[in-house]
């Protein structure tokens, strides 16, 4: 009977998260190299952005410490930018800003996506059609256009405001996937049992349906985080980045504006571009390897 029970659990797609966690630690012995690699890289990047400025005591990325595009040296590890500011310090602060904006945007996108997706999927009928029509409309509008317009409309853009603006356009895919999962989960017997116990709609969604989507939500967040960081870079590069602070995209913006590419000052644009690539690459790799762990079908290959 125990064999039958455990088999039942592993074939039930809803239990993917629990069995996935169990497998996660089991597999860790064999080492999923991609997970380990991407995880380490992310820890390094986050540590670099968050702890770097504190450890190295470089709290002001705007301080002038050299001349126009001084090449890398013993004191200026990555040279200086057009205003003679230390690129290495900027890189640390810029990484932190980009990560914070990404997290805010990612959280917001997940929350809106979950709200709209679960409501549409659970309530069905006319509510579902209206919400999904709205979602599809938002999908078809190119998000960069909305982002540019919104950014222009706000005169001083704080880090938080940037995150909010970006999250506002990236939720629709999450909403659609969540709706699909919810409408399949709501017909499960355990949801019926909870209804028979008098549970209200909100409590059903939170306690009976959401836990079964947890693994998906975590993965969607990683993807949304990635989208958020890249969107921020795109906006900042156009000169619509956060005011009075520095981000990776803004470093690229300055590098473009002050001709670092043409003058051959590679330290102006290579470090931020490389860091953006590194962050995006490790987030996508993390997402893919977590997916592999949670989804047995991918693992068998």
């Amino acid at each position, binding site marked *: 009977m125990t064999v039958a029970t455990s088999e039942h659990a592993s074939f039930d797609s809803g239990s993917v998260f629990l069995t996935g966690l169990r497998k996660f630690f089991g597999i860790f012995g064999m080492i999923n190299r991609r997970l380990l690699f991407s995880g380490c890289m992310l820890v390094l990047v986050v540590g670099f952005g968050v702890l770097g400025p504190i450890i190295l005591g470089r709290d002001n990325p705007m301080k002038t410490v050299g001349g126009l595009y001084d090449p890398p040296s013993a004191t200026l590890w990555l040279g200086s930018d057009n205003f003679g500011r230390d690129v290495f310090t900027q890189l640390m602060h810029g990484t932190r800003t980009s990560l914070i904006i990404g997290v805010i945007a990612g959280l917001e996108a997940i929350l809106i996506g979950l709200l709209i997706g679960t409501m549409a999927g659970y309530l069905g009928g006319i509510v579902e059609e209206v919400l999904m029509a709205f979602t599809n409309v938002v999908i078809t509008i190119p998000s960069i256009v909305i982002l540019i317009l919104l950014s222009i409309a706000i005169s001083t853009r704080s880090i938080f405001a940037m995150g909010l603006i970006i999250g506002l356009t990236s939720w629709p895919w999450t909403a659609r996937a969540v709706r699909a999962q919810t409408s399949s989960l709501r017909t499960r017997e*355990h949801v019926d049992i909870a209804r*028979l116990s008098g549970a209200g709609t909100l409590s059903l969604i939170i306690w009976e349906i959401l836990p079964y989507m947890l693994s998906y939500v975590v993965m969607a967040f990683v993807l949304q985080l990635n989208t958020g960081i890249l969107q921020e870079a795109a906006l900042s590069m156009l000169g619509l980045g956060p005011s009075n602070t520095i981000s990776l995209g803004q470093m690229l913006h300055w590098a473009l504006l002050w001709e670092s590419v043409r003058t051959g000052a590679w330290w102006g644009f290579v470090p931020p571009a490389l860091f953006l690539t590194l962050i995006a690459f490790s987030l996508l790799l993390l997402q893919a390897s977590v997916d592999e762990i949670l989804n047995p079908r991918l693992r068998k290959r």
Partner: protein
Amino acid sequence: MSAHSSQVPLLETRDLQRAFGHGDHAVRAVERVSFSIQPGEIVAIVGESGSGKTTLARLLLRLLDSTGGRILLRGEDVTDLRRSNDLKAYWRKVQGVFQDPFAAFNQFYTNRRVLENALKLLNHGLPRQEHTQRIEAALREVGLDPADTLDKWPHQLSGGQVQRVMIARALVIGPELLIADEPTSMLDASLRVTVLNLLLALRKQHNMGIIFITHDLGQAYYVSDRILVMYQGELVEQGPVEKVFAMPKHEYTQRLLADVPRLRGA
């Protein structure tokens, strides 16, 4: 049961219908089903898969809205109950047990939660100690040791035990009618009779009416007073068990009986 037969039926349906989809593509899962059940009576609904049994169960449990006909509980129309409090009042009297006992549990919680949630339906403000007593009494009644069950996870129990926890859940609420949708079909053959006997005991102890939905004529014969035969969404035959088994009128019932040759001698 004869003592009750003159009373208003416990539950009655009149031309109950449910169609999925619209127009020509509509699938009529339940088509003009009319029957009634008396307090303390056990009625079996028999039919092959796809005959609309589970849809009927969900209609009767008010988990699904009907597209026609009425449902009456003790003569009172409950077809259009929408408000949460009305539905809760209905579910205090009518409860269900489902086919797959493992799927009926939210696997992120221990067994205790499903039983405590059921108590919330009663809404009586009992002290916590009495909650526990009531839950433990229900578990003992279905033959489980509370200390050994409550803080375990569903997957740590066997299929038969889990199904008995589900029955205990209904028992905590103490309904007048229990709708059991194929409660035995996912269990080992040896455990089935335990669950069937439990249903019989519930009727005896609590005078609970039971609608027992099954595809197995043998189980229907064992447990029920009356049999309803369902075929393609319609009730094609109903009557006392012995009568239906001895003289099946509808052609589908005859085929059904022919598929269970050893029962013919019984």
